[in-house]
């Protein structure tokens, strides 16, 4: 049945591939934090056990061990002890099994810093902000960057001479550098925009007009700092693609026919767009990573800030939870781009491009 629907087959294949990637990501998320110094409980105990009696320290350690899923539990959820009264440790494999089971139940553990708040709650609070900031920025940055790039390729001349070096400069500006410069100039020097936060501090998040206005006001600077850099990068790629397309016969033919510039530009755009979409799929991880750091610069209440706070407080469960969510978001974004490619690429429709990653 799928033979008749190459697009559906392509999308299913890609979906299977991302599922595999997701499993690897979960495994990495579990393994990497265990690479370094011993186990996290020792580190936390080293900080928080001073001033506690031996009995209290032991109790605290056991609660952490349990929290992290490091020890064996009996049926009622109590820690099993060996003959010497020490808790029995789980093997790494058992820990991993436990971690996977909990993750797929949507349980990412409990935050240390905001005890007893669940990691899932910390993340759920932050995710809407990150999506609201990054999704429109990446989509708009991609579209506008590509249109400008195609224009630069087509026009060349003075427009290109000014535009291209400017785009390279924008592209080589690290996200956080540009964010800092914008904050400094527009918030500190000019005082036009707020320097930090996602809304005025005295407001409570709601759907009131006042709150939405404040959120929009706080949105402007982070939006532009991500948007401009993204658009610059896309424009550079589109420009080279466009110049390549311009050398092809169909463009020359269209010019001889005397077609309108905008029409030719549309043809070029359509053909150069697919590689640009593939490029987007490859670089979306880097984009989201950079945008998260921009969120930190602006103390925007999204995932970036949740991550920064967690790192500053050695809040391992939150760090791990946030990295997993970021990876998941990147995978979903990638998959969406792939679906788009599935519908736009004539080769996929013709059933030609089946296995390629």
């Amino acid at each position, binding site marked *: 049945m799928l033979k008749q629907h190459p697009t559906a087959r392509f999308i299913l294949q890609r979906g299977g591939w991302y599922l595999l990637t997701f499993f690897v990501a979960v495994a990495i998320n579990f393994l990497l934090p265990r690479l370094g110094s011993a186990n996290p409980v020792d580190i936390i105990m080293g900080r928080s056990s001073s001033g506690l009696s031996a009995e209290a320290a032991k109790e605290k350690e056991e609660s952490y061990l349990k929290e992290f899923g490091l020890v064996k539990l009996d049926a009622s959820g109590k820690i099993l002890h060996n003959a010497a009264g020490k808790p029995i440790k789980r093997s790494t494999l058992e820990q991993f099994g436990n971690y996977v089971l909990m993750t797929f139940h949507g349980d990412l553990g409990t935050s240390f810093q905001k005890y007893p708040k669940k990691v899932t709650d910390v993340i759920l609070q932050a995710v809407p902000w990150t999506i609201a900031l990054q999704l429109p920025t990446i989509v708009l940055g991609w579209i506008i960057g590509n249109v400008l790039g195609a224009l630069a390729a087509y026009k060349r001349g003075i427009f290109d001479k000014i535009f291209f070096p400017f785009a390279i400069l924008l592209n080589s500006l690290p996200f956080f550098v540009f964010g800092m410069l914008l904050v*400094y100039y527009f918030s500190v020097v000019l005082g036009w925009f707020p320097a930090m936060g996602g809304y005025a501090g005295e407001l409570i998040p709601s759907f009131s007009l006042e709150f939405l206005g404040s959120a929009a006001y706080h949105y402007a600077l982070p939006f532009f700092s991500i948007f401009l850099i993204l658009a610059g990068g896309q424009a550079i790629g589109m420009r080279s693609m466009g110049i390549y397309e311009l050398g092809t016969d169909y463009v020359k033919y269209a010019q001889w026919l005397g077609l309108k510039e905008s029409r030719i530009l549309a043809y070029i755009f359509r053909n150069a767009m697919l590689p640009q979409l593939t490029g987007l799929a490859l670089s979306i991880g880097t984009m989201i990573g950079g945008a998260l750091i921009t969120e930190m610069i602006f103390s925007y209440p999204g995932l970036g800030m949740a991550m920064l706070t967690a790192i500053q407080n050695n809040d391992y469960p939150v760090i791990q939870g946030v990295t997993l969510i970021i990876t998941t978001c990147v995978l979903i974004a990638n998959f969406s781009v792939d679906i788009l490619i599935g519908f736009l690429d004539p080769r996929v429709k013709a059933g030609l491009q089946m296995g390629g990653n």
Partner: protein
Amino acid sequence: MKMLRNLLKNPMFVIGMSLFLLSLLAALLGPIVHKVDLNRVAESYAPPGDGLLLGADNLGRDYISLLIKGLRSSLYVGFLAGIIATTFGTLIGIYGGFKGGWVDDILNVFTNLFIVIPQLVILILISASFKDGRSLTLIGLIIGCTGWTWSARSVRAQASALKSRDHISLARINGDGTLAIMIKHVLPYLLSYVFMVFIMQVASGILSESAISMIGLGPLDTQSLGVILNDAKANGALGDGIWWAFLPATVIITLTVFSLYLINTSMEGVFNPRLRD
């Protein structure tokens, strides 16, 4: 030689190369020209002025000394990560692309997996687990070991395009082994390309280091441009308008990365004549 002459005619290349050499010179000769002193020499955030050209940081340390030290660290991390990532990427890419078959399939799956999982996430997870003893070299190693993916991908594409060329078939008829062909007949064709990959890897190494340091997971044993920015952010220098705490460092990072991008773009233009005017 002709290639070099073509490059030197390209203003973008000349500007990029001059900027990069300037930054390299500042890092190498900086300590000779300006005595690097990381002790408290002034008040916290003393403004630029007499004796201190760029003022002092929150601990009263001379910013010029910090910046020289930071630039040296950033370039060191950039080159370390760049060399590791380019070597890994080139080896995996050439081997996979040229050899094909199941080895290529496995390498390809592996590469694509790690292209999709964001490098920043892996960097954060590893760096956060090394709470003590997170050195500059360790960070360079981690960045290099996580950044090779896209260079493997692009080198692979180039190598597999070369596979069916006539001179390769001739070498095969001649009885050369695969390894010998790769070294003698594939690598030389890719050298300029690999060099461009290397330049981009150095740039991305510098950026990754400053990004990870910005988050507060930077090296604990030395200064780096990212650490300077992190200190500035953590102490609220940005909101207080203390421009000398972050502006010089951001300008140095940007210009260094910009110079590398310029070199790369201009080389692309020389190798791909269609992009030229």
